[in-house]
């Protein structure tokens, strides 16, 4: 028997907040060790060139400088391996920890300085002279591939996904709509920049790295392998993390360098990234150009979608390898019936910062593409944008729905969903009819206002497993130990809520240990909106096991049967009243203590889905866009903590708006990055992010786990570019006007001028 839910489903306060709000947070930069050296990276100032010389003599002569490393000093370290979607063909394109012979983007690490403190390190880095013979930079993924090495070109691979008879679909089409669309280069920009502090404990022969995030266990194994050590002799420690968004916590050259240096010099080595570095060195994302067309029948039903796209991955293939283009291709069909489909995604390298995943990777991109198509189909057929979506949605009765595509090593099977119902709910929440009428009136009065709608299917809960151990300490405290990570999303609270209900204790007394490789042997980390689903269910399993164990043992002590007992508020009690026993006492009476471990395995992802509605006002004279209304509906099966889900969705919206209107990494034709400060790379602020209405629904619990959980991390960001584009089109009265993100005032003004001329 499981106790009724007391905590799951409630917006209880975050357990994480007390330390953070009382100044007890320990972020990477807060961690220091006695005698530590500071590392500073000397980065390439050229986008593409041959290194002809490196002269570190002036740097080495500076008082306080301990050493300078170049590629020769790390020749024994292999390039950084892939974590996901690593195709063999991509391996020659992995990034070395320091550039050897050739530099491929501005910001690439070429040398590192080790010095007594940050000031001296930066002074010394300025003195390292790097001679580079510049070569032509390749700046556009749509250009003909160039030479990467003598034998290889800059197209490492092509992602191909298809099903159905696409040629027949177009042959039989009543009409075809076609687009060339592009999504700008932007990325997650956490408040906390990256940081890594390595320390080598000679006495125990243990290498420690602090400042880990996201995937500490995988990184531990990879670092051990790269440095030629056993996995047990490398331990990673996650502190507080100021945001992840996909980019933080992957292995980058700097992580490897601090570890290698700690081993070599037997000194703690600290590296904290500055913001300029962050904007040129940490993963970029998103940049794609799509040539897409859809075949439709006379009523606007989709017969087929054919997409060829160019994914600009920057200078190297980093840990995510082909993940982003793979997901873009696999998730493009979305919530609609698409009888035939073909996607061909060219992975192209350019002389820009390398790319990785960013919140809703591949989906922000392909949702923009798909929803642009839907709007165009509506215009072609002459029905409104809501009706065209209704006509094409996958019906509830079709669930579970096998898409016929694979991604991240799983078959895509939409596990549950009632897409039409959520569309109705979202439109109700937006008061769509009135909104439409009001905007119509204002347009008649000369204002350029409009509204848009976009739908999407997300994916979450990537397996293959998560393991959790739950322990009751001798003093009755409960500890949950997991191999997932906290990047600020509320893991501790959510896991505690699930554990509390399964075990019968107060969530506030549960300590959740995460991101520590020395506390649990295996762990998958925090990505792909997987934690609540995978770790949540593993926690429920382990806590249930622990509860049975506790009740069986307590039954002996209390001379009754286990099924006559219950656990309430941490006390084993007799059902119907009588003597009770604290869980701590049960734990103390067991020679090996009271603990249980369990694993949740899942071969399939779970698929939340959502609808965004936006209304915008366009300033025709300046090209400025103001978002007047924003509604987000998201069905996540079961919300463990609705307030935290709202936070996820609201935060995702802000980032989505960044990519839709503001954020863009620009380069000149020589490969010089032009967006290297927050004055040039425009993050949305509280003034640019509108108030929004968030509707969390639980109409389609996942059948793949007992609580019905689906992840909620990425639905706030996924369709924002798509819905803003739809709304701007409407404001301009020109379906299909927006083909490029972000919609900057300059670009929008050009579109408006095009209309006038």
């Amino acid at each position, binding site marked *: 028997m499981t106790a009724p839910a007391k905590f799951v489903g409630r917006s209880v306060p975050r357990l994480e907040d007390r330390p953070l709000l009382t100044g007890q947070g320990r972020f990477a930069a807060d961690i220091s060790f006695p005698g530590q050296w500071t590392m500073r990276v000397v980065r390439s100032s050229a986008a593409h060139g041959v290194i002809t010389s490196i002269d570190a003599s002036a740097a080495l002569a500076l008082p306080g400088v301990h050493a300078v490393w170049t590629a020769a000093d790390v020749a024994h370290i292999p390039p950084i391996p892939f974590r996901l979607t690593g195709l063999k063909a991509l391996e020659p394109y992995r990034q070395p920890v320091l550039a050897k012979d050739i530099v491929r983007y501005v910001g690439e690490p070429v040398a590192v300085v080790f010095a007594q403190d*940050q*000031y001296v390190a*930066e*002074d010394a880095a*300025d003195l390292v002279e790097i001679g580079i013979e510049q070569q032509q930079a390749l700046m556009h993924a749509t250009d003909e591939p160039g030479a990467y090495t003598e034998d290889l070109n800059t197209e490492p691979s092509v992602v191909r996904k298809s099903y159905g008879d696409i040629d027949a679909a177009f042959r039989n089409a009543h009409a075809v709509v076609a687009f060339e669309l592009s999504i700008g280069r932007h990325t997650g920009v956490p408040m906390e920049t990256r940081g890594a502090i390595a320390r080598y404990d000679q006495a125990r022969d243990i290498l420690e790295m602090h400042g880990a995030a996201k995937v500490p266990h995988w990184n531990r194994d990879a670092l051990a392998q790269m440095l030629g050590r056993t996995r047990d002799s490398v331990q990673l420690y996650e502190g507080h993390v100021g945001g992840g968004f996909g980019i933080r916590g992957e292995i980058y050259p700097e992580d490897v360098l601090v570890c290698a240096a700690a081993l070599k010099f037997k000194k703690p080595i600290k590296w904290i990234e*500055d*913001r*300029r570095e962050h904007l040129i060195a940490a993963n970029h994302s998103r940049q794609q150009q799509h040539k897409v067309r859809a075949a439709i029948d006379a009523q606007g039903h989709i017969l087929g979608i054919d997409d060829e796209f160019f994914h600009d991955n920057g200078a190297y293939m980093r840990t995510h390898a082909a993940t982003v283009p793979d997901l873009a291709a696999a998730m493009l069909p979305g919530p609609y019936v698409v009888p035939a489909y073909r996607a061909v995604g060219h992975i192209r390298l350019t002389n820009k910062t390398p790319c990785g995943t960013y919140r809703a990777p591949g989906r922000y991109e392909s949702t923009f593409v798909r929803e642009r198509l839907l709007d165009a189909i509506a215009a072609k057929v002459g029905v409104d944008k809501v009706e065209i979506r209704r006509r094409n949605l996958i019906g509830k009765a079709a669930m579970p729905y096998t898409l016929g595509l694979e991604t991240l090593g799983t078959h895509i099977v939409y596990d549950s969903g009632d897409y039409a119902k959520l569309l109705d709910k979202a439109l109700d929440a937006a008061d769509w009819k009135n909104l439409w009428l009001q905007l119509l009136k204002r347009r008649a009065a000369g204002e350029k206002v409009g509204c848009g709608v976009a739908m999407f299917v997300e994916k979450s809960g990537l397996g293959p497993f998560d393991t959790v151990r739950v322990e009751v300490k001798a003093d009755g405290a409960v500890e949950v130990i997991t191999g997932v990570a906290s990047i600020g999303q509320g893991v501790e609270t959510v896991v505690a809520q699930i554990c509390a209900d399964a075990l019968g204790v107060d969530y506030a007394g549960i300590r959740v240990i995460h991101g520590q490789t020395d506390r649990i042997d295996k762990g998958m980390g925090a990505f792909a909106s997987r934690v609540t689903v995978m770790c949540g269910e593993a926690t429920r399993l382990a806590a249930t096991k622990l509860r049975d164990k506790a009740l069986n043992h307590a039954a002996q002590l209390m001379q009754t049967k286990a099924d006559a007992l219950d656990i309430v508020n941490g006390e084993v009690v007799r059902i119907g009243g009588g003597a009770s026993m604290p869980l701590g006492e049960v734990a103390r009476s067991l020679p090996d203590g009271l603990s249980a471990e369990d694993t949740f395995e899942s071969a399939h992802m779970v698929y939340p889905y959502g609808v965004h509605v936006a209304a915008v006002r366009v300033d025709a*004279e*300046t*090209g*400025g866009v103001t978002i007047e209304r924003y509604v987000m509906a998201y069905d996540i099966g079961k919300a463990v903590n609705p307030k935290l889900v709202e936070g996820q969705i609201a935060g995702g919206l802000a980032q989505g708006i960044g990519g839709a209107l*503001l954020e863009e990494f*620009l380069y*000149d034709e020589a490969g010089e990055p*032009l967006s290297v*400060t927050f*004055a040039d790379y*425009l993050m*949305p*602020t509280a*003034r*640019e992010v509108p108030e929004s209405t968030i509707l969390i629904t639980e109409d389609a619990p996942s059948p793949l786990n007992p609580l019905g959980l689906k992840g909620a991390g990425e639905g706030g960001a996924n369709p924002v570019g798509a819905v803003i584009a739809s709304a701007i089109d409407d404001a301009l009265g020109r379906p299909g006007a927006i083909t490029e993100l972000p919609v*900057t*005032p*300059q670009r929008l*003004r*050009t579109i408006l*001028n095009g209309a006038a001329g």
Partner: protein
Amino acid sequence: MKPAPFIRHVPKTLDEALKILSEVAGQDGRVLAGGQSLVPIMAFRLAKPAHLVDINEVEGLDRITSDGKTLSIGACVRHAAFHKPVVDNPLGALLTFVARHIAHYPIRTRGTFCGSLAHADPSAEWCLVAATLDATMVAQSTRGERSIAAADYFQGIMSTALAEDELLTQVRLPLLAPDAKFGFNEFSRRAGDFAMSAALVTYTVQGGKIAGAHIGVGGAEPSPRRMADAEAALNGQAPGDKAFRAAAEAAASAIDPLEDHQTTGEYRRDLVRAVVRRALENSVS
């Protein structure tokens, strides 16, 4: 993000400050007031001054005074000092209105009016105010004191008539007529960003017609300046849409627009047309 090494001097008197400045000016010495522009560019190592003359503790530089004709703003007066009107004259309300558009609150509590003028960013609001209202800059050095008219002071992007050893000790703004109208408008990508174009207008209405118009445009050219053609288009006209549009068109035609990788000259003209008209509309709303 650590600056290159520098020596910070902290004089207590103006004489002392000017003396130090004269000594270090030739060795890449710079004046530090609010530091809201200088310190970030030092952190990026785009500027590596060997000496900083920190004037924050110099007696008497934080004063705002008025003699009934002009408003004098000392070198250490912060932007935030203008959050409420500092003088019972339309100028006080004008400065309050404009101050709200300068960056963000924390920056306004530290950055200074004169520092903004010494930095001379093309889109700085205070530079636009100084140019539009024909401010007088008072520069002092160990060699003496001189006054510089706004039209002579701004010499391009982050370039002014100040000599290396001169400290901008004061800016003098003429008070406006008691019945003067003013309007301001700017366009930026985000709230608080540097304006991509900004306009400030002042005028009086005499017998139903506009007189003594000042129309200044910032952010569109290397330095803010008054737009004579636009002013001519406005003077003698009744305030209203027709006159405002004509003035805006004149300003847009007259500028020699700044261009960058994202912003064409044509777009900059569009913005100037919009902000000038909106500033004029703002003056009557």
